[in-house]
């Protein structure tokens, strides 16, 4: 099936539209079935994907506005493939784990539309199509936070929308400028990323354009100092909203850096390494410290998720195969682990309607299964060897060591501070005597919650022990990307930085 990507994009959308007809009582089953089919399609995509081919596969191109160079142009490579699968997986598991009584049907429909936009963003190869899905993803998320969130949900949802919207409009100006440059060189309008790759831009243009795209991506990631919307969004969002937000939506920003910023502006990217490093290191250490100071379990996980996003950004700007592959892998592991952690917090919130750590203590005795799964996810989040979190984090730090040992050491503290706040969270909620009588008779995980969480545990261990099936295709595409960047780079410094990284890889 050559047009499997279109099917992947539009199947959830069509299902969402048809979902309006489905009766309220059956909406949940409907949603889960649709998401299962979608996941199976995504796995089919993986099975028919050629892991040794570094280029775009399953490419489709349909002209939309040829006079203005806008095409419906999609394709997938090693970098985007697994993010697409993860988006489908997390939507499905999120739906299974979801425990919402109010307006289930609206929630299911919103999630299906959201799934369309998420997959669309990661497979789009036309800047306008990318932008279209990127912006469209805000609308269902706005609704999910705003309709099912906590007491300050409306403030949080509007803040989320406006932050991202503002950043991406600046990115849009950047896109229009590249299209114009392309037009002035070639005489044809085009918004295709692959056409733009061929464009060698003057270095000063690259810097400005890099900043324009940075505005869009950095807010989405969210990078320090633009991260302030995220704790609000997580704090107010319902469990499912946080799961999707942390697992998939944030990845759009880091994916954007890899898909747009690096290959389009190789020189500017190299020049920006110090700037990005400083921001990423601040983000890693500062938010980890803030996480330590939180009293609310969900906020701890929200800030820890920002902190880990910093590691992903750091890896992206290592400009070598370890760093970038590591950061793509870390996107997956971060998605799975933080998604699972948000689900776990949701589990306890469903039972007690509070997320304050001080309310709990000694839960391990009452809910042993819950404690075990929480423990595994927590270890993966910290980056313990043989869990999924270790692989990515290790590769990123290894890659970045070649760029700056000092920054690597600073970033490495994330593992220590991460262990501190996570273990503190674990100790205060799960160990010790049962301090609060209300916790004495809490039921352990039920079958529904186990169904949602156990697959994640399996993936965490499987990819922690044997990451190769995922890492190999990523690595192939990342190396092709680096080769391409090195050929395209104009300034000697940029060439040197990128070549250096290639040699170390080949020497191994």
């Amino acid at each position, binding site marked *: 099936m050559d047009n499997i990507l279109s099917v992947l994009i539009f199947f959830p959308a069509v299902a969402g539209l048809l979902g309006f007809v489905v009766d309220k009582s059956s909406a949940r089953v409907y949603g889960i079935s649709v998401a299962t089919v979608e996941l199976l399609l995504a796995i089919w995509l993986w099975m028919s994907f050629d892991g040794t081919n570094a280029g775009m596969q399953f490419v489709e191109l349909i002209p939309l*506005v040829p006079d203005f160079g806008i095409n419906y142009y999609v394709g997938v490579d090693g970098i985007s493939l697994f993010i697409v699968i993860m988006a489908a997986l997390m939507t499905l598991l999120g739906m299974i784990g979801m425990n919402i009584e109010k307006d289930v049907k609206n929630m299911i429909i919103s999630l299906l539309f959201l799934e369309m936009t998420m997959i669309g963003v990661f497979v789009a190869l036309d800047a306008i199509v990318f*932008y*279209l899905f990127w912006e*469209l993803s805000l609308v269902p998320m706005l609704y999910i936070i*705003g309709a099912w969130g906590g007491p300050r949900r409306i403030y949080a949802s509007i803040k989320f929308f*406006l932050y991202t919207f*503002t950043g991406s409009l600046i990115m*849009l*100006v950047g896109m*229009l400028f590249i299209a114009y440059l392309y037009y002035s060189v070639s005489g044809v309008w085009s918004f295709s990323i692959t056409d733009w790759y061929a464009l060698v831009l003057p270095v000063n243009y690259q810097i400005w354009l890099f900043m324009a795209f940075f505005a869009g991506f950095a807010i989405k990631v969210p990078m320090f100092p633009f991260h302030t919307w995220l704790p609000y969004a997580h704090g107010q969002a319902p469990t499912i909203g946080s799961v999707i937000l942390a697992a998939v939506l944030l990845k759009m920003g880091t994916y954007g850096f890899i898909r747009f910023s690096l290959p389009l502006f190789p020189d500017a990217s190299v020049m920006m390494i110090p700037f990005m490093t400083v921001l990423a290191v601040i983000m890693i250490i500062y938010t980890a410290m803030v996480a330590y100071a939180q009293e609310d379990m969900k906020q701890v996980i929200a800030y820890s998720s920002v902190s880990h996003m910093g590691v992903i950004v750091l890896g992206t700007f290592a400009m070598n195969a370890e760093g970038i592959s590591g950061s793509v892998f870390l996107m997956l592991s971060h998605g799975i682990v933080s998604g699972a952690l948000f689900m776990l917090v949701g589990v306890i919130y469903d039972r007690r309607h509070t997320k304050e750590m001080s309310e709990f203590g000694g839960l391990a005795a009452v809910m042993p299964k819950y404690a075990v799964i929480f423990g595994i996810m927590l270890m993966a989040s910290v980056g313990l060897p043989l869990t999924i979190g270790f692989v990515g984090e290790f590769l990123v730090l290894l890659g970045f060591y070649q760029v700056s040992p000092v920054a690597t050491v600073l970033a490495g503290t994330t593992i220590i501070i991460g262990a501190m706040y996570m273990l503190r969270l674990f100790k205060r909620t799960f160990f010790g005597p049962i301090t609060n009588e209300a916790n004495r008779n809490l039921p352990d995980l039920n079958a529904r919650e186990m169904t949602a969480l156990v697959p994640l545990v399996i993936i965490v261990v499987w990819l922690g022990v044997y990451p190769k099936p995922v890492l190999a295709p990523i690595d192939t595409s990342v190396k092709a990307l680096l080769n391409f960047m090195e050929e395209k780079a104009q300034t000697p410094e940029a060439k040197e930085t990128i070549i250096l990284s290639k040699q170390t890889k080949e020497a191994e």
Partner: protein
Amino acid sequence: MLEPINVSLASLNLVTLSPMLIAIAGGLIILIIDLFKDGLHKSLYVMMTILILFVDFGSVMGLNVNERGFFDVMLIDGVAIISQLLILAASILFIPLALTSKRFHEYSYPEFFALFLFMIAGFQFMVASDNLVLIFVGIETASLSLYTLIALHNRNNSYEAAVKYFTMGALAAGFFVMGSAIIYALTGSIELYQVADVLQDRINEPAVMGTILGGSIFLLAAFAFKLSLFPFHTWTPDVYEGASAPLAGYMSIVPKIAVFVVAMRIFGMYIDLGVEWVRILILILAVLTMTLSNMMALVQQDVKRMLAYSSISHAGFVMAALALDTTKGNTGIFLYYGLFMFTNLGAFAMLWISRHKNRIFHERYDHPYEKFAGLVKIMPMGAVVMGLFMLSLAGVPPFSIFWGKIYIMSAAVDAGYIWLAVVMGLNSAIAAFYYLKLIVYMFLYDPVENDNTVYYNASKPLMTIIGIAVAATVGSVFFMQPLISYIFYMVSASGY
């Protein structure tokens, strides 16, 4: 003994006049029908009007590009044709909104429809001429009819609105005449193509530039009144509030298209002549307009007033495209209004659906935000439709106005005005806030108690129009290619 003047009928090329004549004749027919038989139902007049507009539309489609007629005062170029088509399409969409389920008495008068057709003829004259006197006659015909249409609405503040608009309009007309007089004094001609020739020769004379400045400031002020640009925009929210909702929507589109065409002819000429500060002046006005009206829209409590400020802001956005004076910029103007037409008319029609005879939600406003609280629970389809219009107005892809926005922003980038594109982008972000506010009210708040009559005024014709608007808003991506290529062809054929 005076020489007899021979004019052959063929040289008049009367076909260039035919669209306006059809509209005027149609208006007269409606008056004559009323003369013979009283008390006919408004649906008759509505359908008559649609048919007349349809014939009018057909006759515009049949015109040849770049013809002159009637002693060369008529100019049928590509711009004249597209703008007439847009005006007629918007009018055809507008007029069925008269068929509400409740009776609002203005639509019971046949005079309403006659005036409406005269107004359209006036707009058509404005866009299809480069003779300053004929343009003025067009402006006044259209404006005087429009004042009356506003005053026909059955609210106290409709009179206020009409009088306010009339006073402001009279002032603007005065400015226009003064500006034209200066042009005449400078060049001895009121035909723009001759004016351009004379100015071309005299542009380097010392005193000429000062006179051009004086003249164009008068003209700019006149257009700024009509287009509701800052600082001449103050009448707009009051007038929109006083007018009935569909008429307000109509006023945010059709008069502006007509005035934009005239502005394009006059200021395009100046910019082509190399009078750079006209461009700077327009840019300043445009940027101030979009920014300040966005700020004002943020604090409105009434949806209709919010939409009034939002349409001011959109006009500022388009005005910036005018200053670029590139083919792409001018294409953008028509593209933007072509798309804005459906969405904005749809949004105002949604307000019209929820119109009550009495103000039951707020003593001052007809459409306070609270009225739409929890609309998704009362009327799910209505809330979704209104939400789509709001998202489109905010420029969220893939809805229609997004394409207009990127086209104009791209035109700005092409012309080297990247800062302008950034300002446009940031303004769209500010604007997103107040559109979102309505969405938040509709989807995230609970409905106000003791009310189940939000969709009070709905009827099949209204639903049809809204359905068309939704289809155009959502499916815009599929007709962008023909639309852009047609408009671009027409605009470049007329040399803009």
